[in-house]
């Protein structure tokens, strides 16, 4: 009987942890998307100073989240985001519109992909 209780307990913990992870990824992805969207709009409008500031904020925000995200999602997504997020402030400081908007779009796509892969929907399950 003890084994059964341990198993039921473990299943409950796994289910709760999975839901917790899903919510966490959702929050991080939503916040990241918002930040990246703002950076994109600023860059398109030519406000590179504000975009630069926001991109450094995004980079430090992502570094903070990465330590938890590394437990949940595939590591190559994290490497891609880290590399692109590190490039972004440099492109913005050089006022390179094409490179910076392209990098933001890449980041947005990766963040979207992460969320899509985590969602328990038909597409990600099958």
């Amino acid at each position, binding site marked *: 009987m003890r084994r059964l209780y341990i*198993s039921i307990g473990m299943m409950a913990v796994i289910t709760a942890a999975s839901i917790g992870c899903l919510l966490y990824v959702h929050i991080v992805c939503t916040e990241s998307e918002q930040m990246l969207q703002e950076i994109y709009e600023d860059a398109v409008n030519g406000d590179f100073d504000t975009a630069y500031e926001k991109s450094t904020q995004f980079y430090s925000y992502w570094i903070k989240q990465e330590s938890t995200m*590394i437990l949940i999602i*595939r590591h190559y997504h994290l490497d891609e985001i880290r590399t692109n997020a590190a490039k972004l402030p440099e492109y913005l400081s050089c006022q390179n519109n094409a490179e910076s908007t392209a990098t933001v779009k890449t980041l947005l796509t990766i963040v979207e992909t992460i969320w899509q892969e985590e969602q328990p929907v038909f597409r990600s399950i099958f």
Partner: protein
Amino acid sequence: MFVVLIRTLLLYALIIFSIRIMGKRQIGELQPSELVVTIMISNIATLPIEDTNIPLLAGITPIIALVSIEVIISAVTLKSIKARTMVSGTPRVVICNGQVNQNELKKLRFSVDDLMEALRAKDVFDLDKVETAIVETTGKLNVYLKASEQPVTPATMNLQTEEKGPHFIIIHDGSVMKESLNHVQKSDKWLQSILKKEKRELKNVFILTANRCGDYILIPKQQKTSKEK
């Protein structure tokens, strides 16, 4: 490389824990569901070891989930015959009253060669000797011989025998197995008297086995040679 080593050690510990949780049944004959879980666990565990891109939790979570499901299902099958039949199937009688049940063999996709091979594994080389043969849910064949072929036992000869019980290991390499002492219904005092009788100290005993009647076998530790010293 060090990451791979740490991951391997963690997953090794997890699998040992999983097998312990699944219990002794798992180590012996496997039921279909247990076989599936064992194969899946061994496969899943290797993925995060090989590919460091996969989070360790992605390997740990399915292993724990599979083990938990297996234990829960085995608890359910213990209570419900329907569930047990669904998960493990039922034993099939392939030889009944000395007659081979060909329909059952067909259903089991068991060829005559398979049947003969399984019988030979049970030291039965002649179909005529078999009264009943059952294919268990684990796939193992169990055989009941005809009365004329059964080995002679004291009971068949109407002989009176004393029930002595099996021998248990009481001392193993100088350590007393308290549980075994309880099994043979003997006390510490009895053990001390044996050691005194044999003029041995506890630490110098390699093995001491005994049964309920008090019969015992004592093997002392070998003295170290000068080279070993």
